[in-house]
């Protein structure tokens, strides 16, 4: 089974909540969670992706071969775990410079999710076991939504749905309608922890079950999901609107050019005119 972790590294957002949540504590809890997953079964695998305001990067497994001889032996810890932890920390440290920007409170989530999904796909196509390869993704997020990411996020969401990979979300800060929808559509668990410092307990009890046994467990997922989309022209949240029949992009009103802003398909002027017909409610009196 694969555990994919997408960790939000938007420093500005983390810094804003540093009084309630300590990033250090989150990272250590995360490492314990990773070790636990690896310890459960010989064939378990882990993928860690960092997701920043400008780009995402795979932290573990490392792309450059790590020289494990460099890692000094620590008598207290099981060596393979030590290697894993060190690789994650070092890779995250190296990627920090590029990922900071104070003017952004959102991250490019779609890219990170796509990376995780392709890794999961690769593993499952290489696996020879019966019963299919089980994967799940956990996203730890502190940022808001980026409206321009809507299409990409929705595509990634449908891919995860197709591959039956649940995407769990642990939201420590910020509002994200996209993440709510993604968790709901992929049957993942969306949670806003009341006690963020106790995140290890949350990880161990809520986020550890495999997809196959989730059907039998009652998980504390958020049930009121805001399914509204935001329109593409004004980024307003719409509950009733217009949808392009070609690319399925959402509009709050008919585009003035009578063609779709995203895919450029032209609409039939007659049909558009039909949308604006004035209702006739008074019967015409026939002249006697």
């Amino acid at each position: 089974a694969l555990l994919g972790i997408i960790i939000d590294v938007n420093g500005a957002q983390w810094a804003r909540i540093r009084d309630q949540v300590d990033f250090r504590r989150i990272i250590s809890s995360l490492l314990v969670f990773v070790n636990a997953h690896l310890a459960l079964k010989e064939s378990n695998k882990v993928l860690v992706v960092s997701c920043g305001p400008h780009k995402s990067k795979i932290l573990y497994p490392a792309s450059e071969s790590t020289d494990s001889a460099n890692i000094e032996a620590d008598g207290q810890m099981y060596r393979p775990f030590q290697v894993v932890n060190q690789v994650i920390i070092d890779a995250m440290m190296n990627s920090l410079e590029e990922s900071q920007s104070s003017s952004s409170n959102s991250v490019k989530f779609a890219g990170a999710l796509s990376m995780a999904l392709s890794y999961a796909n690769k593993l499952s196509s290489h696996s020879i076991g019966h019963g299919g390869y089980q994967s799940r993704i956990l996203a730890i997020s502190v940022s808001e939504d980026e409206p321009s990411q809507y299409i990409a996020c929705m595509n990634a969401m449908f891919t995860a749905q197709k591959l039956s990979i649940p995407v769990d979300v642990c939201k420590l800060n910020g509002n994200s309608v996209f993440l709510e929808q993604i968790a709901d559509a992929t049957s993942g668990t969306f949670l806003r922890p009341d006690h963020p410092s106790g995140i290890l307990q949350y990880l161990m009890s809520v986020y550890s079950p495999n997809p196959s046994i989730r059907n039998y467990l009652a998980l504390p997922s958020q049930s009121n999901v805001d399914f509204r989309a935001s329109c593409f022209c004004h980024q307003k949240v719409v509950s009733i609107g217009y949808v392009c029949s070609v690319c399925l992009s959402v509009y709050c009103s008919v585009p003035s050019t009578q063609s779709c802003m995203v895919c450029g398909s032209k609409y039939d002027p007659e049909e558009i005119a039909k949308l604006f017909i004035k209702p006739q409610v008074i019967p015409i009196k026939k002249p006697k």
Partner: protein
Amino acid sequence: MVSAPALVKKEPGLLYVTETDTNWVPDGTGAGIFVALKDVAALQAKAADKKSMLRITTSSTPPATHTFTFTDNQDFETCKAALQSGIARARAGQTQVGGKSDKQDEGYAGTSDKQLLADVALQQGLLRNDDKLRQMFETVVIHGGVSATEFWSARLDLLRRQVLSNTQKRGAYNVLSSINPATGSENKINLSLSREIIKDILEMYPTVAKAYNQNVPPLSESDFWAQFFASRLFRYLRGEKLSTSDAPNPIFDKYIGHSAETIADQQPLPVSFLYNVDANEQDNSERYQAATDMTMKPDAIPSTLPMLSNINTLSARILHNVSDYSMVDPTTQAEREDALELHDLDIAPSQEYLLLKIDRAIQPALPPANGSTAATAPDTSVSTVESLEYMRKSLDPRPSLEHLADDNELYEEVIASLSKTIQARVKETTQQRPNIDAATLEEMRLTHATASEFLHHFWIDFNSGDASKAAELSKIVESLTRSNDRITAILDTVASEQRQHVLDGLEPLREGIQIALKRYQTAFVEQRD
């Protein structure tokens, strides 16, 4: 297509009648006559002994008349019949063709939208069989304002389904296996045979037909059948094993063994050389070492063989009798040879995708409005340097994992809050049905269904902008207000502890009605001014 010799103005020629037109070609030189059947305005016929005449008047301007004289009455009758049916068909087709939208309605064998809507018998039949539908019809059409056409135009699928299931015929089947002699008391066997079954038996089993033809004048029908069903022949034809315990019947037993006739005897089929076993018989290895299975040997008649060949011939005969089944192999020679080729190493054709040009550079023209998903104004409370510093500091002395599990109290709190959430979720999902009594429930259901129906037609008419529907629209509005009153009435009469549940059920409906009524009012006021 029908053709017959006919004379036009004393000129001999041949008259052809096809499904769509009729054509007269003279024997010698001369102009022929061609009339498309849909242009025919009138057909007159006069039958005489050797000079029967058919006169066709076309609907072109000016109308042309053609007279065909037949010497043979039989020809005259066939041509007349063919022309009449052709003209009738052309006329029916004509009323449907007209207007762009009708072409799309053209359904399968008489199920176009117009025909369904006009078929009152079909609609009455549906209403008779379905109580709920009839109730809905009465409330909505008879008491409410919706016209019957509108009602059915929302239910075209129902009508079409009914027509299709009515026109389905029952196919051929193995008759004898469906006849089961039921042993009654005192060893008497009761059996019911209908005319149809007898006809099917005689058709399916030529052996029985032969026996029937030879024996029935002396024997009576009922005797014949009684003896037949008790005989070994019957069991033989059903494919059951014949044991010596069956009563031998002198009449029928001589027919056993005759039913090894194959369908190949009746009509030779064109079979491709690729799998024509007979033709390839010289070219096989079975002659030497590998003999065929005992049932496959052409001359073996072991006791189980009749059953297999019986069932096979019967199935083949049934299939053969089905009108549109063709025993000719539809695949071409090229296709068959291609199937034998190995395609493993072929280059797979590359996928062609439709190119969808997405404009990634959409920038909203206006600044993003306030909404939960809009990116709020950048919060500059934390500078880049600061955030970078914070992150670095969190990672640099490596986070120690040692004492993470020490905060037991904190974790207890977490578990407590999780349990509360879980319990709330569980209660939500396993909520019991509120017990509203059956009468109120039925009323609610009826009101809801009819009000939804009214709303549906209201919005169709309202948005169509069709002024002629305005009168109907006002009647629908009256019905909607009546439904609204009915909802309030239900709420008043129900007991207080159930009131909340009933309200939960009917509240969305009430909102919908109110929205519709408000839109109607605003449109009314607007149009008036």
